[in-house]
């Protein structure tokens, strides 16, 4: 029992923080927002300079063979800069294949994912069934759907891979609230779909990675919102005093820190639980996703509020955090959904 980072984990954290701070600048992110919501140069550097596209891919398939803790460290750093990076789909698809793919599927897909050669995304299907290796349906709200190469469709006990550059695929990009992870509608019409060997293993692995990715992004974003607001509070003078000297203002910042520290425990508890295959895995994941997302939204809202008018302008970065926070709240199940899942574990099903 040692709930502290190893030296290696500390090193990874430092590296990725530095990488995103240097590369995922506001200027570059805004360029991506004005375009298709993807900072390709960032993705390429992330893949080739850092080799981190392979973070949670097994070593024998070209990955780094690291676990959810390391994934969380990366997502946290990316989230702190609201980087326009297709990390969510990437880690979900990677885990789905690593845990639910056949040996052939792993050998085919994992090295390409690890190398960062393709952009992946996922969508949940209430009722999707593939007949003769073909899939049809309309899938809304697919993150980075308009720039992705590979789509994982999952539902029930099944998961399929669909080549988005292939036949039977029509994609409608949307302008969405969070322009750093735009949503798209994907319509499949008898599109060739490859079922993963073990959907029952693939789906929870994908969801665990997705929830941890989002929760860690939220943690990083929340901490950055706090840090930036604290910096502003020290500099901005009103009524002849730094506004950070006003007690009510200080207490708002303290409240942010109180939530963030809990979110931090939640994210690393969940990551650790998945890595150790703990009995607490499910509750930890639901806790992490819901708690971290709510924390981020609260902190990003305060980031606008506490910076006054300037925080409400397009020019200021606060809205990037705010919109990302909101979109994280709705992605992969909102807070009510995750808390109801926890309630079901401890109370049984609702009436």
């Amino acid at each position, binding site marked *: 029992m040692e709930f502290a980072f190893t030296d290696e984990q500390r090193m990874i954290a430092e590296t990725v923080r530095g990488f995103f701070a240097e590369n995922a600048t506001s200027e570059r992110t805004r360029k991506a927002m004005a375009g298709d919501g993807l900072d390709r140069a960032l993705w390429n550097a992330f893949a080739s300079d850092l080799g981190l596209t392979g973070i949670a891919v097994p070593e024998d398939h070209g990955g780094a063979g690291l676990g959810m803790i390391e994934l969380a460290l990366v997502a946290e750093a990316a989230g702190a800069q609201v980087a326009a990076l297709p990390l969510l789909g990437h880690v979900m698809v990677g885990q789905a294949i690593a845990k639910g793919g056949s040996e052939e599927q792993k050998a085919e897909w994992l090295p390409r994912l690890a190398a960062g050669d393709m952009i992946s995304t996922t969508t949940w299907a209430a009722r999707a069934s593939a007949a003769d290796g073909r899939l049809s349906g309309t899938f809304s709200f697919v993150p980075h759907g308009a720039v992705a190469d590979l789509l994982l469709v999952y539902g029930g006990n099944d998961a399929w891979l669909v080549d988005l550059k292939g036949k039977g695929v029509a994609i409608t990009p949307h302008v969405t*609230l969070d322009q750093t992870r735009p949503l798209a509608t994907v319509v499949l019409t008898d599109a060739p779909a490859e079922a993963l060997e073990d959907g029952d293993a693939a789906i929870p692995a994908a969801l665990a990675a997705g929830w941890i990715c989002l929760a860690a992004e939220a943690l990083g974003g929340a901490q950055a919102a706090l840090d930036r607001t604290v910096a502003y509070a020290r500099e901005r003078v*009103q009524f002849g005093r730094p506004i950070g000297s006003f007690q009510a203002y200080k207490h708002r910042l303290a409240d942010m820190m109180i939530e963030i520290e809990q979110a931090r425990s939640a994210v690393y508890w969940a990551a650790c639980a998945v890595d150790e295959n703990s009995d607490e895995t499910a509750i930890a994941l639901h806790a992490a996703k819901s708690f971290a997302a709510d924390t981020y939204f609260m902190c990003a809202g305060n980031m606008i509020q506490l910076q*006054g008018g300037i925080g409400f302008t397009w020019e200021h970065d606060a809205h990037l955090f705010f919109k990302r926070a*909101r979109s994280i709240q709705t992605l992969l199940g*909102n807070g009510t959904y995750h808390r109801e899942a926890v309630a079901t574990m401890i109370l049984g099903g609702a009436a």
Partner: protein
Amino acid sequence: MKLGFSPAEELFRAECADWLQAQMAGPFKDIKGITTLTAKAERRKEWEQHLGENGWSCIGWPSQWGGRDATLAQQVIFAEEYARAGVPGRVNHIGIELAGPTILTFGSEEQKQRFLPGIAAGKTIFCQGFSEPNAGSDLASVRTKGRLENGEWVVNGQKIWTSLAHISDWIFVITRTEEGSKGPKGLTFLMMPIDQPGIDVRGITQINGDAEFNETFFTDARCPADSLIGRIGDGWKIAMGLLAFERGVSTLGQQMSFRNELDALITAARANGTAHDPLIRQRIAKAEIGLRLMRYGALRMLSNTDHSAIDGAALTYKIQWATWRRALGELAMDVLGQAGELAEGDAYEWSTLPNLFLFSRADTIYGGTNQIQRNLIAERGLGLPREPRGDL
């Protein structure tokens, strides 16, 4: 204490409703239901004039200045029917709700004649130049300078958050007219025409992609010597008096537009089934209750004329509606789910509810942040010690 309206008042309500609905069904159909303050500005200026021509622009004003001498109850009724008919917000709301009443109260006879008929006719659009980049919450630290030179005021400096300055004809500006003065002393209140070389208005894009607010730069901007309201150095007093007008009858019209937003939310919840979710139901009920309580709070404020502007209900009103609306925006997004995250088309433009979610983040900031409001409530309403100024 009496809440109901008399039969005569109900007749007046019918008259208002008939006229307003006829306009929105007929000649001004194209602006019905607009919820932002920036869309179709030219048509909405025409609407201001149409209101003026028909005597509906400023019904509470004295008939001498283009009003109808309307009673409080009539003003309440008109404000309610205005929003109920889906008429968009008044682009000259600063003129009719702030500048006009300020001139009525503090202006000279000549100024009343110069400005009031134009405002009532919808031909003189006003905006407000109060905040500056370093005088946001701390209004007393304005730096924009005014000096008298050859019978004219010459103004230099910068204002910010000048709502709708880009479509306005006039701006009223607080300037520091006494060299070296500090805080609330040495300020003067000027009315300046915007269309002049010395004034440069630049839009500020907001987080919803819209640009209602502006930065307004003054470089040797000019206005005649008699453009001041009150006397030299009275600026602070007049600005404070003006802020009290913000809590007038116009709050009821504002509330009716909140009503429209809540109704849109209820419609959305019924449409997508979230109206069956017990958690959403509780929150919608809270929103409904909150809105009703705002209405009755406003009626209390308006009815209790013997209590001054520092009556409790009045002091708490701003933070109450701002917080209510911000919560409504969050509720709207929870009702809509991911569908609420899609813009209306290919541009970063938003329908009523997501726009409410985004824009309402400013409600708790402009016109005094929630923090400043709580200071005011505690200090003026409860008599607690004032926050000390620093000396930076």
